[in-house]
């Protein structure tokens, strides 16, 4: 009869996770107990305060380097850096989600159960206040992401994946306008997400089998065991490689890498724009956080074996994203393909197995998150009577109508195109430099070539905005309220500051760039 031992848990180190999940539960109670009029304010304040508190805890435990809760969670430099990044970007996304000045009642549907396109639906679109359940859902998702980047075994990672994915599926379905598109997007995301999760889970099983039979160690899926097994396991390496491939597929799906990217354009287009921004910034951080940990901690010694395959995936991803972006006619789909191409660049960083590579990838995630949130913030502003005007032809001549916002958007697009003095330049530099040093010149060449292709669609939008005459169908740009303005200005300023003086954040990333095993 073996005695059951409770694992020791360092509650201070995991407090950001506890705060977010606790707040999410509290948010559910708020839905039940607080009068409808107050819910929006209470929920938004609660969510923002929680993010702030969690961020404070992350900052306070900046020097923590431990593995806690048995082998389940690793609180180390990369975890803390990425948790901080997720929380900052999530705060910006919450500002966008909470805005009710751009669209009366907010970007979310007032009653999700009403049949789309019915008379009731049209009435609710006219400005009844949106659902406030989005806040607990968002906080749950943030909490899941915080676990995801800290997970130190594959099962915890899987559970975290589901914890942050399920709320996202729901959030995608809650757009106030074009509800059929939104529901379709959510359905697709859910089905394909479940499909990808199955791959991941199958991979976990195979890896578990692979770790069995090492003398002096019991089988397990924590990263230390896997790391040891890569060198010593008597089991067939087929198990290892098949398992590694399946795990990679599950994670690459979330990261939107080709050929597992197919859901991205449809979901980005259909989801409410603030949620799209949240996914583009925070999900990306979480997915790459997990990829980095799995491949640089658990499988570090199989480096030579996975690099060619993941490298090919990276090149394919860059190509697909860049080439398909060229013919897009919808700004949200364009940004989706740009996000796919960026996933390719980030994979290059994952494959640069040095401290600089890790730091560069983390820097890239933060810089890209700020820019992409600012881009989607602008998308929410360009609207006509039917909501957002996302078709590119409608953006022609926007520079004449609203030079200020067109200039901000131009700046963000230039950042995406990697023009110097924007974060887009410094972050590409931070990834390609270490990759080159790590002997991955082919990936860097592919990266530079595809970013040249990718500059074309960006510049096409710029040219359309500034050099076309505004037509009758050119929509106006709403003057945003405080929340969206704040998010937009934070994003633009961060893009500028990280382009001009990136050294402090790079130093921070470099200081944090070491995993504990």
């Amino acid at each position: 009869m073996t005695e059951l031992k409770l694992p020791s848990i360092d509650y201070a180190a995991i407090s950001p996770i506890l705060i977010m999940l606790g707040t999410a539960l509290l948010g559910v109670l708020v839905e039940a107990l607080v009068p409808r009029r107050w819910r929006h304010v209470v929920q938004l304040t609660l969510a923002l305060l929680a993010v702030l508190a969690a961020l404070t805890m992350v900052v306070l435990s900046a020097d923590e380097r431990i593995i806690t809760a048995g082998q389940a969670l690793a609180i180390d430099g990369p975890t803390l850096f990425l948790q901080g990044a997720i929380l900052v970007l999530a705060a910006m996304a919450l500002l966008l989600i909470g805005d009710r000045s751009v669209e009366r009642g907010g970007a979310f549907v007032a009653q999700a159960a009403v049949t789309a396109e019915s008379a009731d639906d049209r009435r609710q679109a006219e400005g009844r206040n949106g659902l406030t359940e989005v806040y607990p859902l968002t906080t749950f998702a943030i909490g899941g992401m915080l676990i995801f980047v800290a997970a130190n075994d594959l099962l915890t990672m899987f559970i975290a994946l589901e914890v942050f994915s399920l709320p996202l599926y729901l959030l995608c379905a809650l757009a106030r306008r074009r509800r059929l598109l939104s529901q379709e997007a959510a359905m697709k995301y859910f089905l394909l997400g479940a499909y990808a999760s199955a791959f991941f889970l199958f991979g976990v099983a195979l890896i578990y089998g692979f770790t069995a039979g090492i003398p002096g160690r019991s089988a397990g899926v924590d990263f230390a065991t896997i790391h040891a097994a890569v060198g010593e396991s008597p089991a067939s390496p087929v198990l290892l490689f098949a398992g590694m491939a399946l795990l990679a597929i599950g994670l690459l799906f979330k990261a939107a890498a080709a050929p597992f990217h197919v859901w991205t354009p449809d979901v980005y287009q259909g989801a409410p724009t603030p949620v799209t921004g949240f996914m583009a910034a925070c999900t990306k951080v979480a997915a790459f956080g997990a990829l980095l940990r799995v491949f640089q901690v658990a499988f570090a010694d199989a480096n030579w074996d996975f690099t060619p395959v993941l490298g090919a995936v990276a090149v394919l991803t860059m190509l697909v994203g860049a080439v398909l972006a060229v013919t897009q006619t919808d700004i949200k789909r364009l940004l989706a393909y740009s996000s796919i191409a960026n996933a390719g660049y980030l994979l290059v960083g994952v494959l640069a197995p040095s401290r600089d590579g890790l730091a560069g990838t983390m820097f890239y995630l933060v810089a890209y998150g700020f820019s992409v949130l600012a881009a989607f913030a602008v998308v929410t502003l360009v609207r006509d009577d039917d909501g957002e005007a996302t078709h590119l032809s409608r953006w022609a001549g926007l520079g004449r109508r609203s030079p200020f916002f067109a200039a901000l958007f131009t700046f963000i697009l230039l950042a995406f195109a990697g023009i110097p003095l924007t974060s887009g330049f410094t972050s590409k530099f931070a990834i390609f430099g270490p990759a080159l040093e790590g002997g991955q010149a082919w990936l860097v060449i592919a990266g530079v070539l595809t970013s040249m292709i990718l500059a074309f669609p960006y510049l096409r939008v710029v040219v359309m905005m500034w050099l076309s005459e505004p037509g009758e169908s050119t929509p106006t740009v709403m003057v945003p309220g405080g929340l969206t303005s704040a998010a937009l200005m934070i994003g633009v300023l961060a893009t500028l500051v990280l382009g001009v003086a990136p050294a402090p954040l790079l130093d921070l990333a470099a200081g944090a760039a070491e995993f504990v095993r």
Partner: protein
Amino acid sequence: MEETVEYAQATGLLGGVWLLVAIPLVSAAILLLLGRRADRWGHWLGVAAIGAAFVLGLSFFFQLRGLENKSVELSLWDFIAVGDLRVDFGLLFDPLAAVFVLLITGVGFLIHLYAVEYMSHDAGRRRFFAYFNLFVAAMLLLVLGNNYVMLYFGWEGVGLASYLLISFWTERPSAATAGKKAFLMNRVGDAGLAIGIFIMFATLGTTQYDEVFNGVGALTGTTVLVLGLLLLLGAAGKSGQFPLQAWLPDAMEGPTPVSALIHAATMVTAGVYLIARSNPIFSANSTLQLVVVSVGALTLLIGCIIGAAKDDIKRVLAWSTVSQIGYMFLGVGLGGAAYALAIVHLLAHGFFKANMFLGAGSVMHGMKDQVDIRRFGGLSKYMKITWLTFMMGWLAIIGMFPFSGFFSKEPIIVAAFEREDWTAWLFGGAALLGAGLTAFYMTRLFVLTFHGPQRWTEDIEHPHESPKLMTIPLILLAVGSVGAGFLLATSVPDWLTETAGLGGEHAEHAAVLSHTVITILSLLVTVLGAGLAWFLFRAGTATAPQPAGVLVTAARRNLYTDTVNEAVFEKPGIFLTRALVYLDNRGIDGLVNGLAAAVGGGSGRLRRMQTGFVRSYATSILAGALLVMAAFLAVQAGWLA
């Protein structure tokens, strides 16, 4: 190049060198942000900012003179620091930078003053001064940076300001086209510069001037050659040198003060600055120097020949700029002490060319924006100050004793004759021929504009002299055209040799002709050229184009360089663009031609795979999964073996 290059840290007053860039930049930002609220006083803010920068520059200059090693470095912050790569956001103030700062702010201040009046009837005057200050800030950053990345930022900044100003009058299609042309041709050069900087990163791991110059000795000859050629390509693009010269004359579509400051006195000399600054690289490879000299000699002749056939006053001056910068390239290419001579010519040229451009602006101001010199004539009676000041500029550019061009150009001709082998005759001869041609076409311009019978269009009755605010800068610049040459030629070379590696070991070869003979010869060709032009054009000229021989027709058509550009770059480019747009609009991929079109076509095809059906997405994910699995297992097969 055995001695190592080292810069001291800036202290005391010189710690404020960054203000030189910051002041114009802040004033540009204020003018752009305040918008119409600043319309009433904005132009004076612009002028004051440049004036302040000039005063500061002057005081820094005197500070620098008092220092022992004549150069200070100011590190502001780490711009990029990833691993071994370190790029400083830092400034370097040394004799070379100092003379450029004084030229940019000094001449810039006078031209700003002139522009207050010149642009007074233009609704966009505030916007104009905002761009103008932006330009000055970028140009100062270009010459003050302490590494190639800083230089590149300034380089792109002046480029941006230049396009904005060329196409300032956006309502004119020709101005917009000229802006585009300048943009495209500069891109070619900029790409060269950028790749050059990448090569520095790759081979030396740094872009700091001192570290690059100290490391050049360790590089192979081929690397230095490639690096130098790329830098030269950048320099040729910015400075309108062969084969990238065609954009500069078209850039005259911008307002005249822009032509004077950007496209004559300062920005277009950035290429000369780049080569002079990088002289340890260029001195390290004699093939490289030969290429630079050849580009300079060829361009100076092209500029002269085309300049002699043009009738637009600003375009003649533009081609003369191309030609004079050719002299400067010749100088920097010769290396050794000739580096300093080229910089002296650059400074002198800054004065007399700005003087003549502003004079041309003054003429246009009085003649209802007429630019055709066949439609001028006899203006000396009506515009006394413009006439006299222009005359000073004219005498200076043709190199007449004792005007500044004589002291700055003639030493370059002498230096060209000092080469070791038969190339002395080639390059010396070209420089001498250029001097004669310059005298010819500049005299033609001067005589047709100010002398001879009046050939005005009917609507002009009584041309008027320009107001004081325009003539005072003219007078000051004319004084510079007269006197600066002597002062510059006697003091600046010594001062400049204090710049790291500049000048120094001057391989003294006996010239193939004695110094006196060359001086006499160059004065002789000048007098001949000028005399011939005076004789031919003293009685005016026909007001319509005349049938002409092969050479003149070729020169009128820019020696067919535009035609070549059109055939080699423009036609295929237009074709590609059209094909892409066609694909883009119709989604038809029948016309897959060229790389860009292939991308568009591929994009269109791939797009069809995005059907919107979950079942096909799931299938593609499954297919991808199988591929990834197969790839991993293939790798594993290799692992077992």
